[in-house]
C-alpha cells in the first residue's frame, strides 16, 4: 500500500477509467446514462457525507441487529470519516474504506483480507458479510440500497482519497505560515523563533530516522515558507493565490495577524488547506463553523460574549462603561460587546476611548520587565544561570535605576479621554429614575493605564463590578497581577492563572533547551502547540498523506493530550474547530481557584 502519491493517483485514475467499462453489474442501470465525467460522484458524496439518497430521502439502515438509524447517523462519514480512513474510539476500531485501501488486498497469512470488488462491497453493505464471507461487526449498519444508489456510492469510494496531496513529494512536505502586515512585530518574532527551531529539530529527527531506514519512507523533510502579506487587506487574497500557485503547501501552520484575518480564512476554505491555530485575537466571524481553519478560540469575541452573558444574567438595569483603545484587539472586543448588548433595553453603554500611545506601552513593558527581572526567570540570558532567588530576595529586589515601574508616569501618559457620544444610548424610558443602575466597567486596555480614563465618574473605583480582558494583557501572569482591581474579574480564555505558572515552567524548559530567545510567551506557546499537533497528526498519518485525514487526526490528538501552557483544556472533537469554547472569570480578590468557567 506504500505508493508514492503519484503512482497512487495513476492507479486510481486507471480505476476510475475502468469503472465506466467494467463496472459492477449492479450499477449498470446508473452508469451508462451518465456522461463520461461521471456526475454520479456528487450523488455518492451526498450519500457518503450526509446520508441523503439521490432521491432526497434520508438514508436508512439497521445497526446492532435491531436499531434503526437514518440520515446523518447512518451516513458513512459518521464512522469512516470524511477522508474514508476510519477512526478509533474507545476499543472500537473502524476500518478505512477509501478506495485505494478497500479495493486492495490487506494483510497476509491468516489475517489476509482479499481486495473488495464492487459485488463484494454490495454484499457487505446489504448483508453485513465481508469479502471473505465473515460477518462484519454489529456496529456496521446493514443498508437497504438500490442498485443506482449503490453504484453512486461505489464510484465515490473509488475516487475517495485518490488525489495526491499538494505540497507532498517523495522527499519533502511543505508548510507555510502567514504573516499579515498589521501583526505585532514582537509577536511575529516570537512566532518565527519557535517555528524555525521546531522545523530545524524536525530535520535532525528525520535525518536520524532516515539513517536507520525502516520507516524512512513515511518521513519527509519539513519545509517552511513564510508568506508575508503586504498592502491593504483587499489585496491579500490575490497575494496568497499567487504564492500558493508558485509553491503549493500541504498545510498552514500557525501564522500571525492583527485584527483582520478573514481574507486568509476564506483563502484556506476555498483552497481546502488546513490552517492550524494562527495567532489571531480577533478571529473571523465564521471561525469554528468552517472545516479547514482551526483556531485557538474566538479571541476577544469570546471574551465579549462571556461578559455580555454575565451582564445579561441579571435583569436589573445597568450602565456599562467600556474603556477602549484606539486600535487592536481591544477595540474589536469592545465593538463585539456593544453589539451583543445593543439588544438589551435596560443597558446603557458608554465608551471611553483612551490613547495609550507609544510611551504608555513602554511603561507597561518596563513594568513587566521589572517583575520579570525580579523573578529572574528568563532563560537564555546570562543571568538565568543564577539560581532563582528566594522569596525573601524577590521581595527586596532592587529595581535597576530608571527601570522601576512608575505609576504616576502611567497616569500622565493617558492624555486623551473623551466620551464617545456616538456610542452612548439614553437609558430606556422604562428604566425608573429611582433605581440606580448597576455600574459596570469593562477594561479593553491594561487597566493600570486606563484608570484615569474614568475621571469624572463618582468615587475612586467607580464601579460595582469590573471586567478586565486578559487577551490585551497577553495572559501574562505578571501583567495580570499588576492589574488586579477591587471588585473586578479577569476574563481569561486561557489556563487558569494559578495553574499557568507551573505550566509555563515546562514551556520555558523547552525554549531554553533549544536556545530560543525569550519573547511573548503566549505566542510562543500557541505556535509550539500548532507545531506539535501538526507533528503528531502527521506521524499517525503514516503514508496516507491526505488533508481531510490530517484534520481528523488533529481532532484526535488534540482531544486528549495536553501539550500547551496557555491551553490546558485541549478539547477538539470530531469536526470541532475551536480549542477553547469558554473562558474563566477569575476574581481579582481572593483565590484564583474560585474562578468560574463560562461557555457563552
Amino acid at each position, binding site marked *: 500500500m506504500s505508493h508514492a502519491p503519484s503512482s497512487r493517483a495513476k492507479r486510481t485514475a486507471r480505476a476510475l477509467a475502468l469503472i465506466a467499462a467494467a463496472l459492477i453489474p449492479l450499477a449498470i442501470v446508473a452508469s451508462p446514462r451518465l456522461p463520461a465525467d461521471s456526475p454520479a460522484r456528487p450523488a455518492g458524496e451526498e450519500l457518503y457525507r450526509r446520508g441523503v439518497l439521490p432521491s432526497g430521502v434520508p438514508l436508512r439502515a439497521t445497526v446492532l441487529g435491531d436499531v434503526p438509524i437514518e440520515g446523518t*447517523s447512518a451516513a458513512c462519514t459518521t464512522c469512516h470519516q470524511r477522508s474514508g480512513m476510519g477512526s478509533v*474510539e474507545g476499543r472500537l476500531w473502524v476500518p478505512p474504506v477509501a478506495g485505494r485501501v478497500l479495493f486492495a488486498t*490487506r494483510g*497476509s497469512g491468516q489475517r489476509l483480507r482479499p481486495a473488495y470488488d464492487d459485488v463484494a462491497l454490495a454484499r457487505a453493505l446489504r448483508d453485513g458479510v465481508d469479502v471473505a464471507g465473515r460477518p462484519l461487526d454489529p456496529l456496521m449498519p446493514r443498508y437497504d440500497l438500490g442498485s443506482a444508489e449503490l453504484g453512486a456510492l461505489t464510484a465515490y469510494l473509488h475516487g475517495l482519497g485518490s488525489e495526491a496531496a499538494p505540497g507532498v513529494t517523495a522527499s519533502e512536505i511543505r508548510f507555510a505560515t502567514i504573516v499579515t502586515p498589521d501583526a505585532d512585530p514582537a509577536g511575529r518574532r516570537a512566532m518565527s523563533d519557535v517555528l524555525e527551531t521546531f522545523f530545524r529539530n524536525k530535520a535532525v529527527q528525520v535525518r536520524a530516522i532516515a539513517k536507520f531506514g525502516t520507516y524512512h519512507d513515511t518521513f519527509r523533510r519539513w519545509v517552511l515558507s513564510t508568506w508575508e502579506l503586504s498592502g491593504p487587506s483587499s489585496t491579500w487574497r490575490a497575494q496568497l493565490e499567487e504564492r500558493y500557485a508558485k509553491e503549493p503547501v500541504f498545510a498552514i501552520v500557525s501564522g500571525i495577524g492583527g485584527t483582520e484575518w478573514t481574507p486568509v480564512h476564506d483563502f484556506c476554505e476555498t483552497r481546502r488547506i488546513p490552517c492550524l491555530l494562527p495567532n489571531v485575537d480577533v478571529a473571523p466571524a465564521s471561525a469554528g463553523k468552517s472545516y479547514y481553519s482551526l483556531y485557538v478560540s474566538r479571541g476577544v469575541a469570546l471574551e465579549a460574549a462571556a461578559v455580555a452573558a454575565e451582564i445579561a444574567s441579571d435583569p436589573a438595569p445597568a450602565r456599562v462603561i467600556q474603556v477602549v483603545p484606539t486600535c487592536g484587539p481591544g477595540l474589536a472586543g469592545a465593538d463585539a460587546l456593544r453589539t451583543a448588548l445593543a439588544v438589551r433595553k435596560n443597558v446603557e453603554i458608554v465608551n471611553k476611548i483612551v490613547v495609550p500611545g507609544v510611551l504608555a506601552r513602554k511603561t507597561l513593558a518596563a513594568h513587566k520587565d521589572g517583575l520579570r527581572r525580579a523573578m529572574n526567570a528568563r532563560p537564555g540570558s546570562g543571568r538565568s544561570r543564577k539560581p532563582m532567588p528566594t522569596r*525573601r530576595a524577590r521581595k527586596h529586589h532592587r529595581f535597576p535605576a530608571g527601570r522601576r515601574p512608575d505609576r504616576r508616569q502611567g497616569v500622565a501618559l493617558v492624555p486623551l479621554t473623551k466620551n464617545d457620544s456616538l456610542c452612548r444610548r439614553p437609558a430606556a424610558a422604562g428604566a425608573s429614575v429611582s433605581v440606580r443602575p448597576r455600574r459596570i466597567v469593562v477594561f479593553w486596555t491594561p487597566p493600570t493605564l486606563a484608570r484615569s480614563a474614568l475621571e469624572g465618574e463618582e468615587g475612586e473605583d467607580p464601579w460595582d463590578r469590573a471586567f478586565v480582558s486578559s487577551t490585551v494583557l497577553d495572559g501574562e501572569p505578571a501583567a495580570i497581577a499588576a492589574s488586579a482591581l477591587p471588585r473586578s474579574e479577569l476574563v481569561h480564555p486561557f489556563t487558569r492563572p494559578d495553574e499557568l505558572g507551573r505550566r509555563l515552567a515546562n514551556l520555558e524548559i523547552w525554549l531554553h533547551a533549544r536556545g530560543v530567545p525569550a519573547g511573548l510567551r503566549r505566542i510562543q506557546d500557541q505556535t509550539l502547540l500548532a507545531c506539535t499537533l501538526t507533528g503528531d497528526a502527521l506521524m499517525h498519518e503514516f503514508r496516507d498523506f491526505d488533508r481531510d485525514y490530517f484534520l481528523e487526526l488533529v481532532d484526535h490528538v488534540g482531544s486528549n493530550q495536553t501539550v500547551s501552557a496557555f491551553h490546558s483544556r485541549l*478539547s477538539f472533537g470530531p469536526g470541532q474547530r475551536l480549542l477553547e469554547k469558554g473562558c474563566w472569570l477569575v476574581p481579582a480578590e481572593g483565590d484564583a481557584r474560585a474562578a468560574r468557567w463560562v461557555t457563552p
Partner: protein
Amino acid sequence: MAARLATVRREPEDDYGQLADDGLVVLAKDGDHEAFGELVRRHRRMALRTAASVAGQDRAEDVVQDALILSFQALPTLQDSRRFPQWLGTIARFRALRVARVEGRRANRRVPFDEARVEETVSCAEEVDETELPRLEAALSRIPGPFEQVLRLHFFEGVPHQVIAERLGVSLSTSKWRCFRGKRGDRPRVRQRPRPAGPFLHELSRGPPEGLCGRGPANFRRACDSLELAEGAGRLEPDRDAAGHVAPVEDRKGGQVNSRSRSILPRSAGGLLLVASLAALPLLAIKPSGATGATDQPPAPPRFSRVVTRVDVPSVAVVDQDGRTVSLPEVLDSREPVVVNFFFASCGSICPVMTATLSRMREELGRQGRSVKTVSITIDPDQDTSDVLKAYAKRFSAGPGWTFLTGEPAAIASVQKAFGAETGGKFNHRALFFFRAARSDSWVRVEGLAGASDLAAEARGVMAAAVAGR
C-alpha cells in the same frame, strides 16, 4: 489512544526487528515510540523475571509497568546505548525492592477480600483523597524556595534532574540533594519557618495525590488495559456465568492495578503524551499488522457486560436541553426508574448508535416505557451547550421523559467520576448504560453495545423491581 492509529495501519514488512538494541535506543531517544515498543517487546520478559524474583510473581506485572515508564522517561540519560537491557533490569530490580518494602508495610493493614460481596459493592469510581491536596500544598509552602522549586519541578512536572540543574544553573548533585533534603523536610540552618511536615512529604517518593499532576487516572487505566492486552487478550473479557451475567472481575482488577501504580507516572504535559503513547506500545508488539482482515471481524466477543454497582450521585447543578438549571439528584429522583448514559453530540461511531438504541428501546417498551426516565449526559460540556443538546434531541426525535444534560465541566466531571465513566478524552469514551429501579441506590452498569432488546429487557427488570418495591 491516538497512537494506535499508526500502529493499526502498519504493514507486516515494516519491522524494527532487524535493528540492534543500540539503534533502537537512539531512535527512541529521538522520540520514536515504535522503537521503544520494540525494545519493550524484547526485554519485557527479562524485566518480569527480575521483578518476580524480588517482589514476587503477582506484583511483577505492576513493577515492570512502572519500570518501563520510568525507563522511557529517563532514556535520554542512558549513556551507553548498548547496555539498555542491563539498565532496564536495574530499574526493575530497584522498583521491585521498593514495592516489596512498601507492600510489606501495608500488609499489616490488609483485610481479606470478600468475593461474595463483590456483586453488590463494586464501585467503579476512582478513589482519590482530595483532602490531602491542601495539606501537601501547605507542606510545600513551608519548605525553603530552592528546595520547594526542585521538588515541584521534579515530582509534579516530571522534569529530569539534569534539566533542572541546567535551568537553575546548579550542579546535578545539588539538584538531587535539594530534592532529597526537601523530601525529608529538612531545612537549611536559617531559622525562618516552623517545622515542616517532613514525613508526609516523604510520601512524594510514591507520587503526589491525584489532581496536582493534571492527569486523569483514566489515562493510566488505558495504559493498563493495553498492557494486559499484550499479555493475553483473553483476560480482558470477563467470565460469563450461565445466565449471561458477567462477574465484575475486570473492574476490580483494573481498580487495584490502578491505585498502586498510578503513583509514579510522570506529572507533566509531556508525561501525558508519554502515557498515551506507551499505552499503544504493546499493541504494536502483538499486532505489527493490525490493519488486516482479522481485525475487521473480531471472533464474536460478548457484546456487553453487566455489573451491579452503587453510585453516589453528586449534588451538582446541571443544565437541561431547554436551558433550565436543575439539580442532578432531583433529575435522578429515586422515586422513578431511571436509565442514564454518557455521550457527546459531535461523536462519530458509538454515540449516535447509543442514542438510537435508547430511542428504539423506548419505542419497544411502548406505553410502559414512559415511566422509565431516560437521562443522557454529555461528556463534552464546552461544545454541547443546551442549544446543541436540543438540536441533538430533535435529531433522534426524543420525546418527553428523555432529558439531555450539560453543565459546568467540573460538575460533569464529578458526575462521570461518580458513575465510573471518566474517560480522559472524548475519543476514549466507551458505551455505558446505567439502570436503576425506583427507591434503590444500586445501579446496573451495562458496558458495551447492547442491542435495543437487551436494554428493553433491562428496563423491564428495573420497572418490575419498582413494582415489587411498592
